[in-house]
């Protein structure tokens, strides 16, 4: 090691490799080998751990890892089924010969495969994080806020499911990738949102979800350069992450009204605009991601809360409502925007019209928004009442602290 220059491993490199290895090997050996592949990849990392500690990293880390895991996998398959046909088709590959685009192709294939599996959104997200993003059980458990045991069960069940589906699954031809985009974008959007809704300094794992979503989106973009919704989604992601440095203070959220906008990352904002500008409006219909990106861009370009063009934001929300007539969250957000320039009382009435349609996830945003409206209308008692009410619908520590702060300010 002494006379070799050791390259520093870049952040999250292993996670990235993990996803690439799983997808590369499953493209080569078949998705029905998924459980053996996961084991082989894990073993390769363990061998790397014990050897690289002493010897430093090999020249081509990815090649090394693929080579070792492939050998482990072949041994395993050989043990399981003597003389099986699969093994006649493959040969031991030289570690240098694996082209990175090959690994990327297979990563995208696996992403498409997962996006089409018929499971709940939450499980789709968990499966993607495990296989594609190299998250361990406890990392996923912290990111999704479910017990480790639950995550393990979901992954184990997913292996059975993957094997079953894999038998008759036909690979997606990249020429027809366009047809798969809605599923793909949905998974990426889920991943980002899960991270964004509670990303905080103390739990960087949440931020990692956002960055994973961006990483995978950038990968998909290599294959779908001018895809309107993908550009919109990337713009949206960049506008949102640009606000990370200003969202958190020591013990809670800072609402957008009070964020120090000089902390917003200008480079990321311009990155967002770059993606937004790539969208050719003459060729595309307005879509959900585009509208959300536009709303975020209005925030990012406003000097402060008061000078924000709330009428424009509310118009954009009304277009979103038109695209998604059943999305209550959109209606709530529109009311918040309107509360900055319309009389409060009719808006409160509008809110109560929504109350019968709430599901559990919406109760916290609904009641805290209602409280916020009463607070704005200077009805302190009602505001307190609904802030209290909202507290019973969140487990998020930051939400809790935010509401408690609101309550203590109202009482003083």
């Amino acid at each position, binding site marked *: 090691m002494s006379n070799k220059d*050791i390259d520093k491993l870049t952040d999250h490199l292993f*996670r990235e490799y*993990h996803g690439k290895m799983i997808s590369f090997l499953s493209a080569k050996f078949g998705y029905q080998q998924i459980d053996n592949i996961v084991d082989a990849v894990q073993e390769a990392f363990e061998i790397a751990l014990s050897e*690289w500690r*002493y010897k430093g990293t090999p020249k081509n880390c990815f090649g090394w890892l693929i080579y070792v895991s492939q050998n482990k996998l072949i041994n395993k398959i050989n043990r399981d089924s003597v003389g099986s046909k699969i093994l006649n088709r493959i040969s031991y590959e030289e570690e240098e010969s694996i082209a990175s685009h090959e690994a990327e192709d297979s990563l995208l294939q696996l992403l498409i495969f997962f996006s089409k599996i018929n499971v709940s959104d939450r499980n789709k997200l968990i499966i993607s994080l495990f296989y594609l993003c*190299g*998250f*361990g059980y406890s990392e996923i458990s912290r990111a999704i806020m479910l017990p480790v045991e639950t995550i393990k069960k979901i992954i184990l069940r997913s292996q059975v499911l993957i094997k079953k589906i894999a038998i008759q699954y036909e690979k997606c031809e990249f020429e027809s990738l366009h047809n798969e985009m809605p599923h793909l974008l949905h998974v990426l959007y889920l991943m980002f949102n899960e991270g964004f809704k509670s990303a905080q300094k103390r739990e960087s794992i949440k931020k990692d979800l956002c960055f994973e979503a961006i990483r995978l989106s950038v990968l998909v973009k290599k294959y779908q350069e001018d895809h309107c919704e993908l550009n919109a989604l990337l713009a949206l992601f960049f506008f949102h992450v640009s606000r990370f440095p200003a969202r958190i203070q020591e013990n809670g959220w800072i609402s957008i009204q009070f964020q120090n906008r000089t902390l917003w990352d200008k480079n990321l904002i311009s990155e967002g605009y770059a993606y937004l500008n790539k969208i050719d409006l003459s060729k595309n219909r307005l879509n959900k991601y585009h509208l959300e990106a536009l709303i975020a861009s209005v925030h990012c370009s406003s000097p402060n809360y008061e000078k924000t063009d709330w009428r424009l934001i509310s118009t954009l929300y009304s277009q979103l409502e038109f695209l998604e007539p059943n999305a209550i969250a959109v209606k709530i957000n529109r009311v918040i925007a309107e509360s900055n320039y319309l009389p409060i009382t009719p808006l409160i009435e509008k809110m109560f019209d929504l109350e019968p349609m709430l599901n559990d996830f919406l109760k916290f945003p609904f009641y805290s928004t209602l409280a916020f409206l009463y607070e704005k209308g200077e009805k302190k008692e009602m505001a307190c009442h609904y802030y209290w009410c909202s507290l019973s619908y969140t487990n998020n520590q930051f939400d809790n602290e935010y509401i408690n702060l609101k309550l203590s300010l109202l009482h003083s």
Partner: protein
Amino acid sequence: MKEFLLLIRESSTYGNLSVEDMQADIQEHINWVEELVANGHFLEGNPLEANGVTLKKDMISDGPYIETKECVSGYYKLSVKSLEEATQLAKSCPDLKNGATLEIREIIITDEQ
């Protein structure tokens, strides 16, 4: 300068480490060794294969047993002035944090002249 052998004893159960943790661990080790190299203390270091046999008079047994703490998983050879200095350097070895036991022994160099 004297030579010292640093034996790392640990249980090699990585089951709970995520790849992110593994990467962090490898990086820490690389940094640690880099510093040893930079200060001229590093002679060599190698991991040991987990499988092996133990011999005793009339008995050959498999092992060392990797699930026990007694298994030596690797070694470093250091060039330092004294046991005290070797101990000082070993204190910053990242394995300690992970629960490993470090044994430091001076190598008696018999073929010096």
